């Protein structure tokens, strides 16, 4: 079930990406609607991160093309933002939280320009949105995983882009951060922004996203959540393992509940 939309925000045509001549994404053809919260879902090694990186031209493409807002990427850089995986940077870097969030403004500032008051205000405002304003002067090595993720999110927000690519923003964060992030993403969607999120947790996917892209090296499905997250399509994406995985997951959760209660007592 691959649904194409009219006037797409992102249009991917016949995209193939290879590492070392070994294709990791094959002939992806998809379009994404404006103002949607999109989840990119698939098993490990399915090429989820590769897909969003290829959409932003961070990786060389073997074939095909990507258009964003019906234009080549180079003309719309200032309308695109990116939240990389947390582990992709060195958190011991000598920088404060505010320094990192201010980086979100660099694209708009232009070459050789220094940050102005408006840029600093925007950075501070973004920090407030993620509830980290009191950490502005904190050294980034002193943050927890969830706080690091919020800082990355604030950096993207400071950019005030129209389309956001996020690579596993929910990986390894505490539940409070996860809730805060999803609320923020919903607000952004309601303002007409498009948010594309790489996600690995099937349980929360149906609750979080309006539109889901199922991926396993090839595109399995792309469409509204309720039509895509079906047993049949998920099995196609995850192979036969899904049933096993969900059964194990269910069992674990059932056991976990009473176990926790006894511990509290």
């Amino acid at each position, binding site marked *: 079930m691959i649904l194409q939309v009219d006037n797409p925000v992102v249009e991917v045509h016949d995209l193939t990406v290879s590492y070392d001549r070994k294709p990791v994404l094959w002939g992806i053809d998809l379009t994404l609607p404006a103002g949607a919260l999109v989840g990119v879902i698939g098993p490990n090694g399915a090429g989820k991160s590769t897909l969003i*990186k290829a959409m*932003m*031209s*961070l990786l060389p493409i073997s074939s095909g093309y990507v258009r964003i807002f019906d234009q080549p990427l*180079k003309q719309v*850089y*200032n309308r*695109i*933002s*990116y939240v*990389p995986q947390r582990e*992709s*940077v*060195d958190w011991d*870097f*000598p*920088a*404060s939280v505010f*320094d*990192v969030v201010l*980086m979100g403004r*660099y*694209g708009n*500032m232009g*070459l*050789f320009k*220094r*940050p102005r008051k408006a840029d600093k205000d925007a950075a501070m405002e973004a920090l407030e949105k993620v509830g980290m304003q009191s*950490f502005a002067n904190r*050294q980034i*090595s*002193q943050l*927890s995983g969830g*706080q690091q993720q919020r800082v990355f999110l604030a*950096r993207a927000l400071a*950019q005030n882009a129209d389309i956001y*690519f996020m690579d596993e923003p929910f990986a390894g964060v505490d539940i409070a951060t996860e809730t805060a992030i999803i609320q923020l993403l919903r607000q952004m969607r309601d303002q007409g922004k498009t948010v594309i999120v790489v996600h690995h947790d099937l349980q929360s996917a149906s609750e979080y996203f309006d539109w889901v892209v199922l991926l396993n090296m090839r595109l399995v499905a792309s469409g509204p959540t309720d039509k895509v997250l079906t047993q049949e399509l998920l099995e196609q994406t995850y192979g036969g393992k899904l049933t096993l995985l969900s059964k194990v997951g269910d069992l674990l959760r059932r056991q976990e509940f009473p176990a926790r209660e006894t511990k509290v007592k």
Partner: protein
Amino acid sequence: MNAFWIILTGSLVATCCSLLGCYLILRRMAMVGDAISHAVLPGIVIAFLLTGSRDSVPMLIGAGLLGVLTTFLIEFFHRYARVQADAAIGVTFTWLFAIGIILISVFAGQVDLDQDCVLYGEIAYVPLDLWITESGLSMGPRTVWTLSITTLLIILFIVLGYKELFLTTFDPAFAAAIGISTSLWYYLLMTAVSLTTVASFESVGAILVVAFLVAPPATAYLLTDNFKVMLVLSVLLGILASVGGYYLAVWLDGSIAGAIATVTGMEFLLAILFSPSRGLLIRRKQLQPV
């Protein structure tokens, strides 16, 4: 007066090397500085053979080109031939340095260059090589002029490109996503390292260049959490090492370049032991739970 010129030369080299070194160590590329400082040798020799003079400009161009070629080769071996980064660095610079040495020995009669001088330099000769204008006016040592201009260029480069250099060093993927070319800034930085190296090698030698590229920035990194402070601090530490090293050498009656490099090492040792935030002998500040 000689002491003044020698210390000034050392301080100028320390300034450019430490500034660029801050970026190199944070990119985990300190050894690329080492590689470039050696690999520029064939560029210098070829520039010398082509122009027949030891003028600074052709040499800077020759060395600059070789420096960029070195980084290209390292990237190429690492990315396409899939050799480990450190192995790629080792192969590239020893190979290019060796070519430089062969060129020197083959054209020995024509080349007024000496391998020892390339490696160790001789900062004590700085005050002897004066720039004397046609009217006979002495403008001070030639090297000081070359190094002053290089230092100004490096400072200008860092001031103008501050945010691009900062961002491409911290998070290249994000930089690329918002349209800042990471490879452009990478090669600009490497060109700057090449220029600095060749401008300094004649007076202080490749080894002191490597010491200045790594030790003061690494010391400053231990002492601060703020990148701008790290830049300034590494320059101050480099200058301090030049002054301290000169008097250490005078006292010991030994090699000045060697003494300066020794002082940078001692600074680093002190920082490891007594840094307020990371010192081994200082109790770490307890982090407040949030």
